[in-house]
């Protein structure tokens, strides 16, 4: 716009049908598909275990990504170690797949700290609760990296509901104007808590929003892990090469309730859930792997065992009360505690922050 490079809408519009790999006759990739599957199995187990732990009061709450594991896993695996992941509150799993300690990843939801892990260690921004607010952070970080000359791309996750927030708009616009190396992945699971997509947007697809920012929109089957991985890798490569941001919409479904505190039966029919259960990302990839001889019963059993180990780690890590110190209230509010905070800590009878 006023810019010789301005692309026409045709180049920016998403594909009419979601991109798919599984079931299309595409050649399997032995380097990636089994690894994807491994993480899907572990991821499902992680989700299930975490939900069980909420029932035991070990977690304050758990927003499960059961059913969305293909997006979670692909998002984590698509990135290079030097890249950055910006997860939302539902994306604990993506952080774990990226390498975050499975127990440390649950600080927020356990309730002993507001995340607490070091974002710089693995380049995972804090799990973000206020919807869409993490998107401008991703843009700013990616922009900063580019200003510094670093080969770093940011991938930011957001839900379908989150696309309605002003921050979504502002982030995408900044990204496009700055040509920041950032990719936005909308996990469209059809609901924002109880609110269905039809009450959230009247657009042909959420990926169509890309056009209004001058970036390409991509639509992908979010339960097809190889498809999500490949679309994200393309978008990340594009960003890395200086091509600017991409908006990717992945169509998926949250098989569990919004969180353990939610009653999904109030707002969606069982039949709908059942239909999506038939498109379980684990089953889809598992079947294809088996068809190509890349998954055997033994391998499956080994993966389940590995996943059980992960679950046991979770149980063990969360089985004991976390070490709590009221002095922590006053820690890290500022670089140096103010006289007022020191006084308050004293009043509470705890060591000064």
């Amino acid at each position, binding site marked *: 716009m006023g810019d010789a490079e301005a692309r026409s809408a045709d180049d920016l519009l998403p594909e009419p049908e979601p991109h798919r790999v599984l079931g299309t006759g595409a050649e399997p990739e032995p380097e990636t598909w089994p690894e994807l599957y491994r993480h899907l199995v572990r991821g499902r187990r992680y989700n299930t275990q975490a939900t069980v732990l909420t029932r035991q009061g070990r977690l*304050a709450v758990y927003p499960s990504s059961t059913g969305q594991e293909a997006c979670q896993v692909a998002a984590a695996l698509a990135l290079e170690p030097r890249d950055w992941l910006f997860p939302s509150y539902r994306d604990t799993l993506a952080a774990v797949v990226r390498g975050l300690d499975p127990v440390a990843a649950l600080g*927020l939801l356990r309730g002993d700290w507001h995340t607490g892990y070091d974002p710089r260690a693995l380049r995972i921004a804090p799990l973000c609760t206020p919807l869409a607010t993490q998107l401008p952070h991703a843009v700013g970080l990616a922009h900063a990296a580019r200003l510094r000359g670093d080969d770093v791309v940011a991938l930011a996750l957001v839900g379908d509901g989150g696309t309605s*927030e002003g921050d979504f708009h502002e982030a995408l616009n900044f990204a496009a104007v700055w040509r920041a190396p950032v990719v936005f992945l909308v996990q469209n699971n059809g609901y924002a808590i*109880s609110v269905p997509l039809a009450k959230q947007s009247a657009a042909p697809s959420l990926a169509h929003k890309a056009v209004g920012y001058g970036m390409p929109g991509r639509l992908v089957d979010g339960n097809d892990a190889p498809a999500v991985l490949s679309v994200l890798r393309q978008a990340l490569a594009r960003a890395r090469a200086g091509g600017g941001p991409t908006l990717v919409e992945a169509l998926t479904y949250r098989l569990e309730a919004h969180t353990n505190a939610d009653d999904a039966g109030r707002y969606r029919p069982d039949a709908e859930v059942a239909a999506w259960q038939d498109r379980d990302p684990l089953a889809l990839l598992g079947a294809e792997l088996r068809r190509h001889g890349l998954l055997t019963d033994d391998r499956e059993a080994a993966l389940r065992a590995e996943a059980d180990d992960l679950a046991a780690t979770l149980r063990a890590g969360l089985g004991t009360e*976390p070490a709590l110190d009221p002095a922590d209230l006053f820690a890290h509010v500022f670089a140096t505690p103010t006289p007022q905070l020191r006084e*308050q800590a004293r009043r509470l009878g705890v060591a000064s922050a």
Partner: protein
Amino acid sequence: MARALNRALRDALADDPSVHLLGEDIGTLGGVFRVTDGLAAEFGDERCTDTPLAEAGILGTATGMAMYGLRPVVEMQFDAFAYPAFEQLVSHVARMRNRTRGAMPLPLTVRIPYGGGIGGVEHHSDSSEAYYMATPGLHVMTPATVADAYGLLRQAIASDDPVVFLEPKRLYWAKGELEPDVPPGGQAVVRRPGTSATLLCYGPAVPVCLAAAESEAARERGWDLAVVDLRTLVPFDDETVCAEVRRTGRAVVVHEAAGFAGPGAEIAARVTERCFHHLAAPVARVTGFDIPYPPPLLERHHLPDANRVLAAVAGLQWED
């Protein structure tokens, strides 16, 4: 209390066709705290509307609806999720009447579940009342009893001015009697008479103060503590509050919000301005600390409890 609020909304919808509810998940789901349970079914989607997920959009469109003469009642899902709507609230909702020389009043209620004590994770337990108090043009109400939940919410919806209606989350499950009539907003109520010192509080701190006043420890010390429930932070009931403080000569303000520049600052300052020579000791403040609201496992150390209230009472220079 959630049921009383539900009842208030139901009755308001039934009594006045211009009342419309807007918010996230308030329709089919009935709200995450079930305050709007059943209302969409009874009054239809257009009276109780699940909006897109955008708080500025919710408050902004509600403002437009009020400009047309409706009486929107907006639900913000949690305290911290009202912040995206801050500009609409401060720059428009609070100013529309003034801007138009009274030609365009803005009868709009913003319901905000606020405060902690329910084990909420980050951003789910803020006490944001200081922001609203510091914004001229807004009424700020917050009930502490089931009766007030019903009565004040009805008054808020009937008001021709915008009202920020703060619902103490941890009292949602509190029980009590509905009463058809409660004192009007702007009036504080003495929940417990007392002669030794006056506890000034509102919302979630009221039960805390009552517990302190009724405690064994208070009795042992021989303290007969008055508890004043402010009910409405704007406008402020100087009369009742000052009368009570003058009577006892000692006062403690109690709230969950951070102390620094919190609601208690104003309360302490104005009480002191008006009752200076009746005070045996400076007005004390028992508040949340000046920190981001802590994670759920630590919140009990942050929240004022009866012990901290009593410790503050003990500090009121009784030796003089």
